[in-house]
């Protein structure tokens, strides 16, 4: 019992430190935007143009949505940002660096600095929740002590401490997505990409996931969410980047609500989406 309490205190302190660091980062000027696209064009083999001359900038600490109908190039955008595919022309800059200039051997280093969340979770099926999250730390060569300290901490943050030794196929969709968020965030990357994170989930679970992403955003991490859930996006009142047929058709910076707490955020979301609260699936 005493051990649990002391661990909780550590986790709170770490989070506090992260927020503080994030604030410092925001005040220090000038820094290149975390994401910058310059006329990025992606052409798939066969000639299909997935993205056409897309230019945009996302500042550090932002929470932005990319919306658009299926096949508009949203997922291509994500893949381009982690250099799974390369643009035919144009530039992709992450923190001011052109990632397509990186040698192939440095691509893993780039991916460690970007957390990625997918609609299909992409968890390792033969590993427990703990091992899935720990893998992200093992990859960067973290010490065993570090892994033992950080992994339970982040799993508690996403509210899965009771399922820590379960395998992914024993979890619900929402829980699996929480694991994938934990894995994406355990290294505290400055940028978090989410490709349809709520695509397979019901509205109430979706709010829980968005609440989690919002909380991560409040630690200073830039969060970019790709979704086709227009309603959710409208209610969130955040920046919205709309794509259609591979072209950028709208980029609105909607202000407001930047200082609401995650609790207020969730309550508002539930109210506006007309979902009755279901505390069972909520962390804390």
């Amino acid at each position, binding site marked *: 019992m005493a051990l649990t309490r002391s661990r909780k205190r550590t986790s709170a302190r770490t989070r506090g430190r992260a927020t503080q660091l994030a604030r410092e980062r925001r005040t220090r000027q000038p820094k290149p935007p975390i994401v910058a696209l310059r006329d990025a064009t992606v052409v798939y083999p066969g000639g299909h143009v997935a993205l056409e001359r897309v230019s945009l900038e996302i500042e550090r600490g932002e929470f932005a949505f990319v919306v658009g109908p299926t096949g508009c190039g949203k997922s291509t955008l994500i893949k381009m940002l*982690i*250099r*799974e595919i390369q643009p035919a022309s144009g530039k992709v800059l992450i923190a001011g660096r052109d990632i397509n200039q990186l040698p*192939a*051997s440095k*691509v*893993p*280093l*780039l*991916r*460690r*600095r970007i957390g*990625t969340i997918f609609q299909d979770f*992409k*968890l*390792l*099926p*033969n590993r427990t929740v703990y091992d899935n999250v720990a*893998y*992200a730390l*093992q*990859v*960067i*060569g973290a*010490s*065993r002590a570090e892994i033992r300290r950080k992994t339970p901490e982040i799993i508690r943050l996403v509210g899965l401490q009771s399922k820590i030794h379960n395998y992914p196929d024993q979890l619900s969709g929402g829980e699996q997505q929480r694991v994938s968020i934990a*894995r994406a965030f355990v290294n505290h990357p400055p940028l978090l990409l989410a490709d349809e994170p709520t695509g397979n989930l019901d509205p109430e679970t979706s709010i829980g996931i968005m609440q989690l992403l919002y909380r991560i955003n409040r630690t200073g991490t830039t969060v970019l969410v790709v979704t086709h859930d227009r309603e959710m996006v409208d209610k969130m009142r955040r920046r919205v980047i709309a794509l259609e047929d591979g072209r950028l058709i709208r980029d609105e910076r909607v202000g407001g609500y930047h200082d609401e707490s995650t609790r207020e955020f969730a309550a508002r979301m539930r109210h506006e989406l007309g979902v009755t609260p279901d505390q069972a699936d909520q962390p804390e």
Partner: protein
Amino acid sequence: MTRLLFFVSEAFRALRRSAAPSVAAIVTIVVTTLLLGVLIPVLKASEDKTSDVREQIGLNVYLHDDATKAEIDALERKLLAIEHVDGVEFISKNEAAKILAGRLEGDLRNSLKELKSNPLPASFAIDIDDPDNLRAVSNAIAPVGADGEPEPISPAIEEVRDARQDASKITRVTGAVTVVLGILAVLLLVASLLLVGNTIRLSIYARRREVEVMRLVGATNWFIRWPFIIEGVIVGLTGAAIAVAILWLGKVTVVDPLSENFELVDSFSTMGFAPLVIMLIASATIVSALGSGITLRRFLRV
């Protein structure tokens, strides 16, 4: 060190969690190694047998019963003087009878004793340095005369007989056997390499999603590859160990008792068991590890 432990535990985890493909890979390696373990000694033995046969080929010069001691001594000197002759051994009538008696058994030996006189001729057994020179030596002892009949160099010679025809037949047959076995061995080796490669590819293919996830999390290629290679080493070692155990069982229960009774089987154990085992285990392990490592390349392209 921590890394190595992590990779090894990852490899064992993968083996545990995908038991069926792992067992398939191990069985493939067992079969292949067994085949090689049998073929290699057989091939080696047949090669040795051929050279054995070739070494045994010589000439026999049979003498008239009425040849005098002086004629025989003179002939021996003449024979020794011929080029390519390594050695000459005189076998008297009595010795010839003893040799024959030694080869016969039971009734046959008794019936030999009942013969009143010894029908066997005395002879010279001639060793020749190389079977290819057989004809030359034979011609030197009994050159063909003007009338087409052989004219021996000594009146004591009744007949010169060589095992030339038999010998060349034996060399030709054993040569063919070696070639056929060699081709078979190469074919089997290629087939088994493909089989092992394919089995490994299947087991990795089943996990390509996993590899994809690892890449997305930012694992370097070697970080992903090492557990697979170690897994390959474990599979190769296990398979080879099982195969060697079976081979050893076969050697102890079948080959060893046989070789005590049959000279031919005895020569099959020409290759030492220890070097064979080391070779088999090393090659199985290397093939398996390389197979894993190389197959992964396809999934590791960024």
